């Protein structure tokens, strides 16, 4: 199977802070990768480089064979014009920890905005798509509600539907349940599990070890800007090879 995501030697600094220190990563089509790690380990930054929300300082990010944000000519990378970057992003769905729904638009408008204005698809095609997606996340009756009137779990499900409305090749989740009350975590994880079973390629940054065990094809453990260890959940979670992984799991399990 082809690599949907391929990272090679990715470095990123914020001023003096070296957040990513040479990350290599391969995710095949249809795979679910869960990234674990202590806060500050660079896992969110890594995820954000995979749709060019953060530019990398060194290294390359490829999604479905396409170099992200740059055009290669010889040994040089030329920054792409913004229009091109935006087009690339429409193939990658991103779900934020804090949902980031547009509060002044209804749920339906939130879902339809990107397909209409970023992809230029006709309304007649996008409207039924929005309906289908809302049914899929169990919120068909909330189409005309404003986000503020929904619970956190419902808002995150709308945010997932909004990301799906672009019909992306790849879905990225940045701690999708960290901002939720404990009793609302389950409904969001159920939606993500359902997508995983449907064969969507995704990368999920999370602290939910149980979710990782159940859904992930591979689990990566990150610390201090590097991927320390990577493997199938049974191996990484139950028999980690590295001391740092063991220490981390010992604290969260």
């Amino acid at each position: 199977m082809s690599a949907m995501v391929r990272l090679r030697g990715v470095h990123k600094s914020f001023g003096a802070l070296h957040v990513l220190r040479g990350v290599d990563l391969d995710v095949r089509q249809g795979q679910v990768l869960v990234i674990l790690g202590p806060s500050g380990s660079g896992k969110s930054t890594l995820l954000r480089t995979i749709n060019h929300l953060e530019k990398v300082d060194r290294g390359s990010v490829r999604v479905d064979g396409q170099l992200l944000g740059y055009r290669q000519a010889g040994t040089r990378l030329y920054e792409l014009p913004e229009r091109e970057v935006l087009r690339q992003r429409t193939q990658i769905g991103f779900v934020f920890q804090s949902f980031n729904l547009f509060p002044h638009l209804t749920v339906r408008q939130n879902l339809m905005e990107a397909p209409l204005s970023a992809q230029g698809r006709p309304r007649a095609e996008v409207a039924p798509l929005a309906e289908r997606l809302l049914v899929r996340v169990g919120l068909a009756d909330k189409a005309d509600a404003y986000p503020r009137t929904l619970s956190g779990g419902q808002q995150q499900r709308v945010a997932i539907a909004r990301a799906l409305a672009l019909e992306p090749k790849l879905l990225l989740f940045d701690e999708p349940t960290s901002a939720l009350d404990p009793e609302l975590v389950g409904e969001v994880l159920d939606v993500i599990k359902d997508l995983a079973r449907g064969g969507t390629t995704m990368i999920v940054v999370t602290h939910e070890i149980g979710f990782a065990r159940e859904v992930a094809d591979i689990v990566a453990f990150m610390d201090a800007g590097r991927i320390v260890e990577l493997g199938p959940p049974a191996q990484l979670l139950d028999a980690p090879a590295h001391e740092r992984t063991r220490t981390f799991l010992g604290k969260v399990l």
Partner: protein
Amino acid sequence: MTLPEVQEVSRQDAERPLEVVTARHPLRWLAAAGVLVVLAMVASALITNPAWEWPIVGQYLFAPSVVRSVLLTLELTALGIVLGFVLGTLLALMRLSPNRLLSSVAWAYVWLFRSVPLILQLLFWYNLALLYPRLSVGVPFGPAFFDFGTMDLIGPLTAAALGLALHQAAYAAEIVRGGLLSVDHGQREAAAALGLPPARRLFRIILPQAMRTIVPTAGNEIIGLVKGTSVVYVMALPELFYQVQVIYNRNGRVMALLLVAAIWYLILTTALSIVQYYVERHYGRGRG
């Protein structure tokens, strides 16, 4: 030991529900009565003193020359606000640009136009012809396509509208910038992650949310400008304030005509306040 007692009390409560008696506020009543007396005195002073010349006020309130001057005041306000906020929005976007030159120029503009008194700026534009007798349109530092006499191009009305708009733009820039900064950073990120084009991001996602912060302050500014147009009287433009001065200099009814102007300013600002209420409600949708 205490448990049986508690049970007894609650049984009593169930039998006869307790009644709530609200506290009395005698001082509040006294203050209200005092204010009422003062109001009555003010009303009496306004109505019974013939020096206010209410019939004269009625006579001039809708006089054609006064109505025309009200329209000119409205025109100046509209030009000042529309041009001021268009330029102000542009300045706010420049100020937030990563390009240092753009943001410095915007900063300098705000610094300059906020620092010089409006009346001075108006006189400056009015007398522009003293500095540049002719203005031309063409290639910068190159050949000119059109050439105008400054006096023909910038008459008193243009000078007044220009002066008000340029002055207003400095304040509008800060108001719009504040509004843009008040929008949560996550909104920008979400819009970018969804691949929305830059103009769409600004006009569909960011500005409508910024309007919640912009409208109340902008409402203040607009109402300020309605009254601010009275400064234009220095250019002998027949707006409301200038016009009533012309009339009372002729007939000597000073108080009555100042009252006419005051009533019109009240009407205009009241109308604008009502509009502001509905605009705020529009941009507040989706927020409980």
